[in-house]
């Protein structure tokens, strides 16, 4: 069951690389939130009920509902619907994403060690690379925001595979994850659009040498 959820998570990352519509970005972030909720419930069901409740609420309310809702609101407010057409083509983005998947599988296979769950390690690495690719390839800030959320999701997925000091670590990481994401989203939502009127990273070049 967990494996199929993780595979679906990987598919969502591949789809993320080819889609150009921001509505799809937000939908994928929502889907990943639901997947993480399911994975966390299945893997961590043995922990103390209160802690499990906290993780469940965080993944469900925050990752699956609140953050996607804010993303949809940003799309409505800024009226930006898709990544810039002058950017990297879908085909090249897909190639790069598949190359990242290949690298992740190779690294996981190469460093295979019984102490670390190879599936979770590989997917976390792919998630990290996917987020970075999205940040580098796409010029609009919204894509960067989604890239950051994808990286955070990958780290969260990997943290569910680690048994040490659970669930304290996850709880604290989640708490800060919430704070940082909300801070970034609020800066984007309330400040950047009003103050800079910038929707792409090319406009943010005033602070430089």
């Amino acid at each position, binding site marked *: 069951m967990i494996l199929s959820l993780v595979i679906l998570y990987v598919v969502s990352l591949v789809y993320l690389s080819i889609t150009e519509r921001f509505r799809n970005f937000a939908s994928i972030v929502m889907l990943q939130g639901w997947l993480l909720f399911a994975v966390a419930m299945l893997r961590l069901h043995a922990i103390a009920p209160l802690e499990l409740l906290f993780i469940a609420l965080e993944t469900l309310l925050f990752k699956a509902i609140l953050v996607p809702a804010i993303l949809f609101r940003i799309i409505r407010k800024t009226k930006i619907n898709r990544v810039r057409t002058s950017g990297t083509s879908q085909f090249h983005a897909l190639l790069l994403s598949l190359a990242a998947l290949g690298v992740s599988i190779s690294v996981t296979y190469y460093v295979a060690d019984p102490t670390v769950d190879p599936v979770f390690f590989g997917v976390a690495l792919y998630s990290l690379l996917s987020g970075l690719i999205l940040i580098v390839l796409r010029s609009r800030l919204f894509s960067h925001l989604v890239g*950051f959320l994808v990286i955070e999701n990958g780290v969260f997925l990997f943290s569910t595979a680690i048994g040490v000091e659970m669930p304290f670590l996850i709880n604290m990481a989640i708490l800060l994850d919430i*704070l940082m994401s909300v801070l970034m989203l609020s800066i984007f939502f309330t400040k950047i659009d009003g103050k800079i009127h910038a929707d792409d990273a090319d406009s943010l070049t005033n602070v430089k040498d």
Partner: protein
Amino acid sequence: MMILVYLLLSSLIAVAALAARGRRTIHLAGTLFYLVQAAFGAWLFAGGGCDGSAGALFACDAAGTLFYVLLVLVSFWVFHHSETYLSECDLRQTRTYFALVMLLTTAIAGAYFASNLAVTWIMLEATTLCSAGIIYHRRTAQTLEAAWKYVFVCSTGIAMAYLGILLLAAATKCESLSYDAVAAVAAQGSPLYLKTAFLLILCGYSCKMELFPLYTVGVDANFAAPAPAAALISTGLVNAGFLAILRVYRLLAGTEVFGWAKSVLLIVGVLSLAIGALFLRRTNNYKRFLSYSTVENMGIAAIGLGIGGAGVWAAVFHVVCHTFIKSSLFLQMGVVRQVYNGYRINRLGDYIRINRVGAVGLLAGMVVVMAFPPSPLFISELMILRETIAAGKWWLVGCMLLLLCIVIYSFCLRMIRLCYQPNQDELHPTKADKALSWSALSLLLAAMVLGLWQPEALRTLIDQIAAL
């Protein structure tokens, strides 16, 4: 337990400052905050927490104690200078700024005393939140851009570091993430996982230590934040990044990947030194100029760690002394802004006639940061060079000397220009606050004293920190 009480109390005072209805109340909150810091410092020196036992989350050790004392000193000066610097800001902005400075000081102290990899990470993430608010203090498009970049890059970097920490935990199969527990079993971990974990952690924390590759956000942060706050960010916060990396470095000391980790630090150190040296020539803003100097100095510290042996001692000493010097220079820059209302290198000049004390402070700072005697950096850089020569790494010696020459040339050119070049016609300098220049100078004098004489207590503390 005592550290938790301290963190809670400090945070409460900082939050209370947010509700202040007047400048006197903010000043009162600040006084109370630094009284708590002084009381905690006294407790540390009375040996209250330094019994060698590590708590689950926080512990008092030599590194934490030494860097905490430096942090409180710098933070106190920053608070004092900020009161004048922000005298024309409205109350809402002022109280937010001071509350954030206090919260940042608390979060940095938490990072110093963390005895657990995850707690260090959490505290460093907390510093991002506080710093972002300080960077955005002026509420302009430029500061918003800098704050956005800072939050975005730091969060991404810190997320990568967290992945590294999780990997380290998984690789060592450790029951706990406390430094002691992980160090005890690190040697049994898979070398490849340890290497990957180290790379991720180093890359992530480089945004805090202002090292290659994520040094850019630190430079932007110092540029956008008010000058006194930049003094805190480029010393206290940078030290937190240094300490976090040093603790992971010590974890790996007993493993077979230690040599590899040292090589990575050497490469990162040389690249940081090169970037710092080259951008010192390129930038046209005095605050960015000082920030690149921080990148360069952290590069030297990373090289010290990479060389190992006495280089580790020298690296710690270098960072300690850099704290005094760089905070002094940033605080002097705050006075420069008071005079010229800007930091543009190609327009400012004649500072020696406008504010003699400040100009002497900057020129003396220039000599000290260039590591000319009686600078303490002379000792640390000489030790690192000696270790490098002893290790037979002549390419590194050549690189370092060449880049240090560029640094010296850039510093001389820029600082002498500020003090002696004719001022631009359009500028109408205002009166400088000489008392602030004097107080900033006192930090530099403290550094120069360390260059001539290192107290036994300091040497002992650094010995303990550098012991692998």
